[in-house]
């Protein structure tokens, strides 16, 4: 029987060995530059079945490692149009933002030895049109869309913006495009693709049909699986198993001489706990932005070589109101609640390492707010902890206090119910802290968790919640920042370049705020239209619009800004050095970008 079991076990393992992924037989791979181990923030969960395709949600084309963008955006406070070189070595932007001319890295080759040319970039832009992006959209009236893509020579390409509806983020839209090898992908699109695209940019039934043809290609592009990785990045995917991916140095990469690691290991993770374990055991050379409780942080810091790097993260979390529900339609109720929340304490409990208590509600991360608003930031109402003010605000809203508890104007009980997606432990902790604070101040409050994030989002959009947590301040582009407060979720949509407002409960409007707000010192504003303007205006005009919107958000409180995130990363200097310092503008890019730019060095 024992012998039989042993044989069965061996046969089982043989079966696994036989059906495990490719690779050639031979010895373990090794090299002088060493192995760099990390987790890909964009794809922490690996999937061996996914194609090597940068547009596929689970594709095994890892940004910065074996997938390249035209350029890599810097993590700046206010300017979305600053970049580090990628496929492009340099670029010239027309003064009126009407075009950008890209100069490709000289002598750059794909990992199979073929040169990277402007034709590859143009072809990739064609693929981007099928997927829909900022600069490459076929929708009529789309802001910041390209109208022309012209190959100047093998190493130069010019992209022109359609100035009928220009956008200040046009350049960012161009630079974010992925570049893939035309000789590998060319079977995906028909030969007359560019003619179809030109027709699609026009008007009438023919254009409509052409747009349909372009969109019909999206599925084919998304699912396309190249037989092997042909990369223009610093690494090439060699093999994968469900737990890890192994990439090896691409010797044809334009900056290969300065790429320190010979090999790169990406580890599969299914949650933060695994990243904590990897960090505690000193396995990772770098771990991306990860939420960490204080006790775990102590353990991580105690591991030899581990260091914490912190920087700007253009994200904040807020408590958002559904103003279609009473009494939250009354601004005094919202202000009263804001005056009862101790944001410092909430942040200390929920996100001690990865957050800074919001100084006020402006809709903008406090660091960017200082840049955008200057001294005006100090003028905004800070909504400090003030129970007397809360009482005054509630009384002004007509609420009544009965037996030490606040009730609705008609005497009915009032309970503040905060909804939270259960898997987000920091949000759950924060919501519990808030309800404790409110309860102590005589406001009956409870936390209700939702099973998962997709369900949370759909119920939120359906207007089922009175209050929920909502990410805001998604910078650096000002339009992206304020559309979280005055975009689709609050009733404003941009259709064919025109702003349209929908009533609460319609077209995704779950915030249910008013269409116009009377702002002290500004007058009546339509915040949705102001937000849309941020797509097109620049300079001082942009600053003026942002100042109005920050005032509107502060005065009208569609949300209470709770804390601003801090990008908390981990590096280990036992094997490699040269990691970005605190506040580096590279901290939001994966470490593949640090490596390809030559920052990372092997420890001597």
């Amino acid at each position, binding site marked *: 029987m024992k012998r039989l079991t042993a044989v069965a076990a061996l046969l089982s393992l043989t079966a*696994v060995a036989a059906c495990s992924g490719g690779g050639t037989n031979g010895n373990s791979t090794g090299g002088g530059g060493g192995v760099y181990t990390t987790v890909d923030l964009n794809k922490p969960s690996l999937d061996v079945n996914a194609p090597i395709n940068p547009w596929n949600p689970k594709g095994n084309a890892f940004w910065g490692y074996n997938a390249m963008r035209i350029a890599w955006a810097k993590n700046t406070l206010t300017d979305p149009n600053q970049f580090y070189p990628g496929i492009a070595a340099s670029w010239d932007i027309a003064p009126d933002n009407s075009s950008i001319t890209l100069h490709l890295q000289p002598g750059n080759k794909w990992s199979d030895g073929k040169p990277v040319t402007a034709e590859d970039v143009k072809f990739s832009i064609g693929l981007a049109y099928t997927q829909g992006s900022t600069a490459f959209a076929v929708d009529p009236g789309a802001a910041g869309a390209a109208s022309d893509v012209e190959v100047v020579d093998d190493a130069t390409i010019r992209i022109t913006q359609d100035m009928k509806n220009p956008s200040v983020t046009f350049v960012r839209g161009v630079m974010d495009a992925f570049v893939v090898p035309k000789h590998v992908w060319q079977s995906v699109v028909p030969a007359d693709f560019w003619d179809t695209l030109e027709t699609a940019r026009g008007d009438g039934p023919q254009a409509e049909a052409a747009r349909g043809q372009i969109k019909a290609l999206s599925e084919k592009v998304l699912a396309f699986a190249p037989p092997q990785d042909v990369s223009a990045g610093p690494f090439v995917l060699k093999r994968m198993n469900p737990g890890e991916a192994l990439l090896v140095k691409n010797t044809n990469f334009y900056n290969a001489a300065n790429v320190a690691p010979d090999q790169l290991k990406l580890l599969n993770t299914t949650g933060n706990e695994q990243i904590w374990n990897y960090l505690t055991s000193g396995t990772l050379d770098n771990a991306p932005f990860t939420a960490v409780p204080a006790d775990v942080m102590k353990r991580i810091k105690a591991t030899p070589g581990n260091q914490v790097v912190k920087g700007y993260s253009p994200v904040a979390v807020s408590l958002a109101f559904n103003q279609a529900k009473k009494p939250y339609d009354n601004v005094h109720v919202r202000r009263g609640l804001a005056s009862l929340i101790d944001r410092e304490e909430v942040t200390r409990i929920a996100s001690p390492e990865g957050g800074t208590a919001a100084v006020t509600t402006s809709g903008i991360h406090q660091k960017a707010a200082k840049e955008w608003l200057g001294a005006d930031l100090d003028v905004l109402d800070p909504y400090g902890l003030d129970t007397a003010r809360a009482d005054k605000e509630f009384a002004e809203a007509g609420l009544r206090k009965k037996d030490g508890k606040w009730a609705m104007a008609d005497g009915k009980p009032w309970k503040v119910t905060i909804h939270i997606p259960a898997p987000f432990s920091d949000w759950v902790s924060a919501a519990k802290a808030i309800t404790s604070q409110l309860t102590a101040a005589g406001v009956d409050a409870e936390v209700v968790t939702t099973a998962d994030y997709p369900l949370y989002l759909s119920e939120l959009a359906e207007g089922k919640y009175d209050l929920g947590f909502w990410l805001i301040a998604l910078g650096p582009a000002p339009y992206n920042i304020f559309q979280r407060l005055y975009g689709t979720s609050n009733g404003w949509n941009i259709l064919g370049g025109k702003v349209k407002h929908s009533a609460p409960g319609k077209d995704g409007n779950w915030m249910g705020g008013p269409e116009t707000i009377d702002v002290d010192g500004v007058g009546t504003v339509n915040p949705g239209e102001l937000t849309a303007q941020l797509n097109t205006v620049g300079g001082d005009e942009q600053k003026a619009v942002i100042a109005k919107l920050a005032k509107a958000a502060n005065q009208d409180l569609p949300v209470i800004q709770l804390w601003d995130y801090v990008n908390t990363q981990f590096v280990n200097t036992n094997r490699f050095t040269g990691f970005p310092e605190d506040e580096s503008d590279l901290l939001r890019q994966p470490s593949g970008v640090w490596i390809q730019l030559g920052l990372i060095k092997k420890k001597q």
Partner: protein
Amino acid sequence: MAVLLRRLAGHVARGLVMILVVTTISFLIIRSVPGDPLAARYQKLVEQGMAPDAAQRAVEALYGFTPKGGLWEQYLDYMGGLAHLDLGQSLSVPGAGVSTVLFSAAKWTVIPVLAGTLLSFLAGVVMGVYAAIKRTGVLGDLLAISGSLLHGVPQYVLALLLGAIFTTLIPILPAGGTADIMIDPGFTADYIGSLVEHATLPVVTYALAGYGGWILAMKSSVVTVLGDDFILAAELRGMKRSIIFRYVARNAILPLFTILALSLGLLFGGAIFIERIFNYPGLGLMLIDSVNNRDYSLMGGAFLLITTAVVVANIAADLLYTVIDPRVRSGGETA
């Protein structure tokens, strides 16, 4: 043999009807799961810094992978696909067939769970016999306590304990993954050794978690058989104890075989907690992932696999009983 074939035919017919019913019910349940996968994808893209309109367009590219039409139309499409053994396309991994995704995840669940189950079954049966024989002594008590203890501790607690001990305190085993990626896959000692090393903690957890149930069941079964008349008769005839115990063990193990066959049917359900703790990407994790992504096709495929496995295991258990128990084979008649 004729009895066996008759039984088999009946079972297969009943099994197919059961699979059809369960598939229909699971189809309806899956389609009623609230939550929009595309909305979640949109939010993720926006949170990654993509402009809202661009994120919206990127999400539209995924529409082609979502089921179309009304519920009835989707059901007919789904069943039509099943008739051609086509489980459809995954939404979370556009371009990958559901059967491909299922197969690639299945081996990382089935083999470790099977190994763990067989190990625990063998150990439990052998120790269960000892525990029954020595039930009045210290050894019997210790064995029974070990069984009760391990039966009572939840699987994930065991996994956390073993993980903490062998990957952190005494770091002799890998903390995650299925094999060392640095070793070339193939039929080599290095690669097989790496597979074994990575599978050790999940297999041992499954084995320890199952052992308690088997030892207690076997002990109780042996004690029951020991009280049977034929054992008393054998003892009165002066038969050797060793021969008597061979009879006892054979008769006592019969009900356990049925439970074993049924538990093998549950292999495909995946062990979500264990796979998560050991970052061992099998069916359990895949199923959770598919639910989180509202990947209807993948969820449907996973439920179909689990249902089929349970139905087949039931049939196997019944046929096994027919083979190993003469009383069942002769239609319950006694000589």
